[in-house]
């Protein structure tokens, strides 16, 4: 199973600041291994972040997003103690969901 994410969500005057780190190789499909054969592409293709049953961010990624991806954004309407849920799916169908409480 993929490693857990690190999620920070903090309330500020102008909204909830969300920062997410994901553990993923993000193989480009361009790299060759020691034997000279191409390492197949393996990357997170979709990310969905929800708060109170509503999507606050969705993303489509290609393999050019850096290894162990990081993203940061801000949304309105969240309060301290609320839960946000982050789900990613990769191009091999692996998925991972983690939750964090807004601080």
């Amino acid at each position: 199973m993929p490693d857990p994410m690190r999620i920070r969500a903090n309330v500020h005057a102008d909204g909830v600041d969300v920062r997410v780190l994901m553990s993923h190789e993000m193989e480009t499909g361009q790299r060759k291994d020691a034997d000279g054969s191409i390492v197949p592409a393996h990357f997170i293709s979709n990310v969905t972040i929800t708060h109170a049953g509503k999507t606050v961010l969705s993303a489509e990624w290609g393999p050019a997003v850096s290894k162990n991806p990081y993203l940061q954004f801000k949304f309105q309407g969240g309060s301290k103690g609320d839960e946000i849920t982050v789900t990613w799916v990769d191009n091999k169908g692996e998925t991972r969901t983690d939750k964090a409480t807004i601080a």
Partner: protein
Amino acid sequence: MRPGRREFVKLSGVFATLAAIGLLGEDEARAQQLAWNKAAFETKNLADTIKALGGSGVAESKDIAMTVPDIAENGAVVPVAVASAIPGTQTIYILVEKNPNMLAAAFTLPPGTEPGIATRVKMAQTSNVVAVVKANNQFFVASKEVKVTLGGCGG
């Protein structure tokens, strides 16, 4: 913060298991996978990318603020932040002109989410980083050059 983290680690374990045995989330996961715009992620130039994203043209905009380093010490991780001041911003796309495939990432920002995003992308070489914003179903663009340098003493 530690107990919180451990808690969600356990929780998500449960979710992953449920997804794996098909009780929860698998349909959702599959739907998400289907929502990946393969054609757009295989484009080699801006015009083709815009077309694959459903646009007919693109206009330069001063209302897109990009934060990228002028020089990246390593191309594997180039921090990119894009903020749009264009009303009705729906989606922010990050593209790297000289990568094998130009489109790196697309972020859809529903109402209530600030029209800004920060992430990190790979750059194969010195190139323009391009931010495209879709607002009211029209496309806008801004770009900035990032120099990718060589480092170290062994390579």
